[in-house]
């Protein structure tokens, strides 16, 4: 450590003077200047010495300043639990900064944990802990939840090869369950998520060993200290939602000035989860957005040639604000021209298409007997049969007085536009449920299912547009130029699985929004962005990512003991030296007071 300074000096001297070596070394200490006048006078040499001395001092100060920062044994990126209000009611973790000793799950039940941070891997979660500390709100210094490595979005498919798929599914369920509990509770202590890695495993093993031996870490017994420095979380001023719309115009017949009918395909792209920095939502609703992009690509090929352009306009909508009662969709629809809204034949909303084997559901709010709904559903079922997919119909009435919007098509239905949602979910989710949290990982999304859904929607749409219903035709056949491209789907799914997309934390010109806009612009004629503010019912707070520093600290007793030992060492040294150099009498005389001299008054 102290060799660093020496080495630093050496390295600073590395800029050698390129002059030939003198026979007698005159003090030419020009450190940082490469020019060397051999004929320097003594005064110049002196000046050089002083200058270089000052530069050494400056270098030392810079070094000191740099070394001050970051002397922790372990530094980890941690992701905070979301903090939000619904109409003023607080939810989530209300505190961001953390400065307490660490304990593991092996703490003695009933002990006071209000000044301790509990480090809890996901595997060791148990019901009593969740019930007492999360739902009932017992005081706790802090909570650090460790997620298994395979939840990390960067290496979703490569790492965690030794974890079986059933284990992974179990973890997913546990995590989804935990996320729901955390989102709906009010927690007065900081909660952070982190991924397991070697350093944390070592630290946790150490802490468990100490806990098992009955020595939980406190100020007097040493151990580990976890520190997150963060200012108090502030409200986000006006969180924006950005809707992206793409317009693919159809072929207007000559002499026909009427507005062409429009078909809308919509998917919401944002997510909501327990940790906003980790909510990647691969299935909800990454799969829906990817399907929309692929459909846009296929139809753009068809519509690029006037011979194959259909007599329908296609409107693509990537909406935001999905978890918040499809707020963005509502604002987007409200911004429509009356004529455009009336020209929409029907809208298909895509949601959670990556679930796999269970089949898809068509959710509608108009009664199934309605002619339009029948037509849509029959079109879809015919194609589904050909693809050997299961498709069911579910009807859920809208309650206009209830502000809860469970499916995206309900926002269309409230404005009297026929719409349906195609989803892998069979039951309408509650508020902030199935909104793509941490547990919604790339691992659990089936690419093949998304490909099938794209085929389903595109084929049924194309048959309707070109009037080929009931005919034996396969427009988007495999191995044709119109085939669905699995690698396109895969690469976009991978991108979405790496990008957390909680709407309040996406700025207006966020890279993802720009990428989606560009991608859509490649396929359609006209792309527009619409910015709006999230419904006032929801308020969000910042500070979603922080760094955690783990220090190994010695206890107070250790320092006191050391002081005692050193004190006695110095005293012994002192006595020893006095005895050997001045004699024992001198030592004793140091301790005896000088005899008080009483002046005798005569």
């Amino acid at each position: 450590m102290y060799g660093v300074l020496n080495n630093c000096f050496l390295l600073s001297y590395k800029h050698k003077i390129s002059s030939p070596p003198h026979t007698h070394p005159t003090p030419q200490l020009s450190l940082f200047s490469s020019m060397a006048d051999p004929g320097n006078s003594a005064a110049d040499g002196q000046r050089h010495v002083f200058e270089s001395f000052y530069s050494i001092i400056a270098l030392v100060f810079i070094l000191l300043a740099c070394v001050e920062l970051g002397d922790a044994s372990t530094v980890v990126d941690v992701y905070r639990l979301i903090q939000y209000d619904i109409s003023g009611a607080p939810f989530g973790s209300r505190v961001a900064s953390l400065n307490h000793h660490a304990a593991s799950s092996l703490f003695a039940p009933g002990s006071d944990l209000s000044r301790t941070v509990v480090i809890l891997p996901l595997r060791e979660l148990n019901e009593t802990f969740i019930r007492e500390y999360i739902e009932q709100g017992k005081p706790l210094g802090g909570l650090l939840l460790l997620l298994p490595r395979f939840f990390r979005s960067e290496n979703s498919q490569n790492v965690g090869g030794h974890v079986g798929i059933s284990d992974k599914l179990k973890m997913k369920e546990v995590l989804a369950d935990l996320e729901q509990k955390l989102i709906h509770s009010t927690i007065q202590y900081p909660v952070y998520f982190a991924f397991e890695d070697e350093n944390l495993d070592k630290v946790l093993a150490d802490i468990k060993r100490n806990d098992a031996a009955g020595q939980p870490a406190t100020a007097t017994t040493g151990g580990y200290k976890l520190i997150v420095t963060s200012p108090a979380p502030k409200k986000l001023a006006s969180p924006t939602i950005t809707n992206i719309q793409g317009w693919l115009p159809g072929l207007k017949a000559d002499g026909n000035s009427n507005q062409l009918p429009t078909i809308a395909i919509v998917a919401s792209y944002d997510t909501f989860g327990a940790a906003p920095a980790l909510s990647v939502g691969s299935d909800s609703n990454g799969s829906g957005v990817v399907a929309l992009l692929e459909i846009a690509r296929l139809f753009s090929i068809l519509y690029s040639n006037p011979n194959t352009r259909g007599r329908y306009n296609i409107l693509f909508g990537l909406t935001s604000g999905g978890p918040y009662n499809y707020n963005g969709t509502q604002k987007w629809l409200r911004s429509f021209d009356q004529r455009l809204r009336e020209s929409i034949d029907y809208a298909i909303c895509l949601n959670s298409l990556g679930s796999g084997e269970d089949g898809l559901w068509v959710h509608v709010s108009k009664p199934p007997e309605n002619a339009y709904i029948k037509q849509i559903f029959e079109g879809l079922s015919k194609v589904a049969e050909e693809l050997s997919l299961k498709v069911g119909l579910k009807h859920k009435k809208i309650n206009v007085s209830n502000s809860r919007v469970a499916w995206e098509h309900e926002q269309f239905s409230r404005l009297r536009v026929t719409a349906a949602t195609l989803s892998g979910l069979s039951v309408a989710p509650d508020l902030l449920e199935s909104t793509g949290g941490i547990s919604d990982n790339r691992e659990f999304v089936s690419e093949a299912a998304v490909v099938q859904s794209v085929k389903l929607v595109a084929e049924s749409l194309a048959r309707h547009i070109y009037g080929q219903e009931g005919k034996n035709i396969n427009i988007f056949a495999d191995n044709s130029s119109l085939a669905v491209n699995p690698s396109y789907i895969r690469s976009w799914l991978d991108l979405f699985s790496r990008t957390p997309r909680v709407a309040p934390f996406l700025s207006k010109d966020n890279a993802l929004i720009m990428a989606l806009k560009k991608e859509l612009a490649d396929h359609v004629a006209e792309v527009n962005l619409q910015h709006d503010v999230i419904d006032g019912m929801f308020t969000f707070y910042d500070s979603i990512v922080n760094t955690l520093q783990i220090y190994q600290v010695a206890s107070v007793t250790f320092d006191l003991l050391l002081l005692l030992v050193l004190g006695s060492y110095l005293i012994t040294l002192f006595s020893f030296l006095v005895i050997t150099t001045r004699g024992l009498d001198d030592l004793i005389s140091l301790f005896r007071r000088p005899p008080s001299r009483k002046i005798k008054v005569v």
Partner: protein
Amino acid sequence: MTMFHFFNCAILTFGPHAVYYSATPLSEYDTLGTSVKTGVVYLVTALVKLVCLATFLKVSESDIFDPSQELLKALIGFIDVAGLYFALTQLTHRNISQNHKFQAVGLGWAFADSVLHRLAPLWVGARGLEFTWDYILQGLEANANLMLSLSLAALGSLMWLRKNKPKTLIPIIYACAGFVATMPSITSYLRWGLGWHLPEVVAFQLFTSLIMALVSWQLFSACQKPSA
């Protein structure tokens, strides 16, 4: 807690110097000036050594032990001895006996060495929350260094200031002085060449410094007997 640790390590590193000064008759004879001047000489010697190291040594990237480089470092280490010679002989001291002169010079030398090499790491490192044993070991090393400096100063004063020495002891004196002067090279060889850990190196340093202190004490008192 952390300032506490810094305070502890500081008194371990610098306390013995102060204790030595106050406990021995040095304080009575007011030899502080000598020590201060020796400190300045040490600083100049350190600068000269750095310049030589920079000019003649290749900076290697890895920590392997290169014998030729180490030999060069040892040779440059003898500049230390030259500095000590300068301090012992050339500085104008007041009339203090040889006995106290070498102690004052050794003390000043060791104190300057500790301050230069150990104060900055201590200030920067020991105040942090993270606890390591390094700074306590560094303090012990400072103690060993103090004893070595005193022995070297004693042997140096024997070699250069005392004119009448018993003939038999002269080679021993020179051998011991040589050994003490090459201690830094030996330490770095143990550290990098043999791969010893810091606690073992510090233990070795303490052990050898104790032995050398005893040996030089015996030599000094042996040489003192002929002169009254």
